[in-house]
């Protein structure tokens, strides 16, 4: 009887909700500045009626909704049935599914490491030379994207497996313009100015930085981004590349120098909200909220382009909060390097419709629909940047398209035991008081142990 009671209640909710569930497209045909021609041309050339494509990935609400809205156009254009399922434990689940043979058609990997492992087991289908050439021609810094998506296949050489879709920029410093105005601060354009501003804020009785490394089991990762960014600003890009492959030892002076640069910011009680002791224990999701406290707990926060999702409700990026490029040293001639990350799509179970879907993602239209919904950046040179949901996103997109040196998040390129293990925990030790040499040496030892 009890069951019936609940079943009845739930049945009503189901009936009430289903009325709204009918599929509809988010932007009507011809609306906005989208490249509708590319959609029409794609629809003309492809028909997958009756076929289905299954996708799994790490995106959940709200990114999953954006992705589903984009998928709806593919379904409309080709008649295929596409479903996307997101999971917070995607990285474990895809391994189980691949092992057991129940893999989806397409998997969305949050970083290249896992895709490379699956490729070497023969679980991924190469995308082929056309796709490789397309990335080369259409993405800014195309060769870096190809390198990041090319892995050792199950025996004979390398193949292009991973197509990058949705990229984020990490070299950003967030601030509240009105707080800067109140205090008369200017946005710094070089690392020297940034350090001078940091000292200036302390001299004025404020706290310059909010830094939080807490992230549950992944505690420490925000610090790895800091070190990577500072590595790119103190050393040439090829030294950075050597570091990510361990051709340059972790405890070499170059890396220790970058860590100490980070320590200059994070290990000084006066520079960080809550003192250096709070850095490791503050959750990275709560950390930026300090800028919006009354009175402000800090003035600046260095974090990737996704962080506005954790600003207090109602914060408008561009008005209430803004960002500037994490500047490079004026006295070092290293250009303006950009650190970023991104998700890549790979085919885990091939079919005609799956290939068609991967082609669809290459159309400007597919990328523009994602851009217009927010939370999406692309290095695609053929898209109309007016389609970005906000000016802030458009200028981040411009940073990506104009990158002279783009480097992927180094910790994601290192082996999991280092990049998602000892590097994270090492940085927690480092801000906790351990010396850069000790931490770097122990990380190098953990790397040696898995060679």
């Amino acid at each position: 009887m009890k069951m019936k009671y609940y079943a009845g209640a739930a049945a009503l909710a189901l009936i009430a909700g289903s009325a709204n569930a009918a599929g509809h497209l988010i932007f009507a045909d011809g609306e906005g500045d989208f490249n509708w021609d590319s959609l029409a041309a794609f629809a003309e050339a492809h028909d997958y009626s009756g076929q289905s494509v299954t996708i799994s990935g790490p995106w959940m609400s709200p990114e999953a909704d954006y992705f589903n809205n984009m998928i709806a156009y593919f379904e409309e254009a080709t008649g295929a049935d596409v479903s996307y399922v997101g999971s917070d434990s995607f990285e474990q689940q895809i391994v189980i599914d691949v092992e057991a043979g129940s893999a989806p058609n397409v998997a969305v990997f949050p970083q290249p490491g896992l895709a490379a492992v699956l490729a070497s087991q023969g679980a991924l289908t190469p995308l082929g030379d056309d796709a490789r050439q397309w990335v080369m021609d259409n993405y800014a810094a195309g060769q870096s994207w190809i390198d990041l998506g090319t892995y050792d296949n199950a025996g004979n050489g390398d193949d292009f497996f991973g197509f990058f879709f949705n990229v984020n920029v990490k070299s950003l410093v967030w601030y509240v313009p009105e707080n800067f105005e109140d205090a008369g601060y200017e946005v710094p354009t070089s690392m020297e100015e940034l350090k001078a501003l940091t000292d200036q804020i302390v001299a004025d009785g404020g706290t310059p930085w909010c830094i939080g490394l807490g992230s549950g089991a992944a505690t420490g990762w925000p610090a790895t981004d800091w070190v990577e960014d500072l590595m790119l600003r103190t050393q040439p890009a090829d030294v950075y590349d050597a570091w990510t492959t361990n051709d340059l030892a972790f405890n070499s002076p170059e890396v220790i120098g970058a860590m100490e640069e980070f320590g200059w910011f994070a290990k000084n009680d006066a520079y960080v909200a809550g003192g250096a002791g709070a850095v490791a224990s503050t959750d990275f999701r709560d950390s930026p909220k300090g800028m919006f406290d009354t009175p402000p707990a800090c003035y600046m926060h260095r974090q990737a382009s996704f962080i506005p999702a954790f600003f207090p409700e109602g914060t408008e990026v561009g008005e209430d909060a803004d960002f500037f490029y994490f500047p490079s040293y004026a006295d070092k001639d290293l250009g303006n390097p950009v650190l970023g990350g991104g998700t890549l799509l790979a085919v885990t179970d091939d079919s005609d419709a799956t290939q068609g879907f991967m082609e669809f993602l290459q159309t400007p239209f597919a990328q523009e629909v994602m851009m217009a919904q927010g939370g999406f950046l692309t290095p695609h040179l053929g898209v109309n940047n007016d389609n970005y949901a906000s000016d802030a996103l458009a200028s981040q997109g411009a940073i990506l398209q104009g990158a002279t040196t783009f480097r992927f998040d180094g910790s994601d390129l290192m082996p999991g035991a280092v990049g998602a293990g000892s590097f994270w925990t090492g940085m927690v030790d480092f801000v906790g008081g351990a010396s850069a040499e000790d931490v770097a040496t122990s990380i190098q030892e953990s790397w040696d142990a898995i060679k």
Partner: protein
Amino acid sequence: MSNIAGTKSSLNWAVQISVVLLVVLWIFPTVGLFVSSFRTADQISSTGWWKALFPTEQSETLRAADPDDFAVQLDDGTWAVTGNLYEEGAQASISSWGTSSRDISAYVPGDIADLGDGETITMNETGDYVWTSVEQPSGRGQRVFVTATNPPEFTLENYDTVLGEGVIQSILIYAAAAAVVAVVVGFATKSVGLSNFKMAAYLSGIVVFLVLSLVYGLGTGQGGGQASDNMAKAFFNTLTVTIPATIIPITVAAFAAYALAWMDFPGRALLIAAIVGLLVVPLQLALIPLLRLHLQIGIGKGYLGVWLAHTGFGMPLAIYLLRNYMAGLPRDIIENARVDGATEYQIFTRIILPLSFPALASFAIFQFLWTWNDLLVALVFLIDSSGQTTVMTRQIVELLGTRGGNWEILATAAFVSISVPLIVFFAMQKYLVRGLLAGSVK
């Protein structure tokens, strides 16, 4: 309760105090979670839940109305924007305020702040402000910092997000109406002397709830359609997983337990030892091989697979618990039955099963709670990339968002998902206590 001698122990008060303390300690986190479920994300990150119950002095950043829409030109040619900083209905009492982030309590209510460029702003204790300007103001509303004592503030928004717009209000109202009707019916039937008046009361309550839900619907049906749709689907799916995954192992285990307890056959002791040994095998070990087996024999990912998996994983404990209980039943009854010519099957169904009811019920509760709260087994054996199958735990994880920072949703979802197990627990708790002792006391 009195002790055997019939006099109360002199240390009785100490026992009672420590019990109360233990209970408070035990429910303390739950209370915190419950209070948090009625707070917004910003409230949760700024103050602790224990402060939510009392008026607190807080500093806030607020903004005057947009001058492009609300500026009015006065007779003397100057411009003014007037209004209240707070949303309608808020009852804050401002103690100090400021216009610069460098000095947030520069003024007290009634002071006039000079903003430069011929602009001034002033406000009273309740947040009514007058913002004047010589030129026509433009841009954004003036930012002001206020330090004010705010009354406690709670919201049902989180429940609307999890369940759908207005669903929680509807459920509470219908449940209250149903409870009133149930009590009235209960008293009425009791006074006319009906023996099972309790049943009548329950039935009438359930009927009232269902009728109200059917006639008026759940929720206002606006905006929240999508969320409630998904949650309702997940709710049904969870029941579809949970009920068979509770009944199948109990049925199988009851037969096995009887055989292991009362039927003599060679190797019985070894079999029992093997089953006890299986208790310590972590189920994670079996995930990939079992899924591969399911795919090979054509079950695939789906309800049948998840039922079988739950059955398998729950079986060692079920058999162990039931066997120990059944082995403790008096030997005489069973031997008498045998002498009277009863078959094993008759002994099992007529004698053992009725006597084992407490143990069966308690295991049913265990298994129900475990399958209800399960995410891992469902992720591996049920949820495929078609998106058609989901369970409530999965739906809740989904609501937490890609980077999982939505604490307010977590707190709320915990209470939504706990509601069914709570009802099951309270409905069957007398068996749980009895069943917990199953096998431990002979």
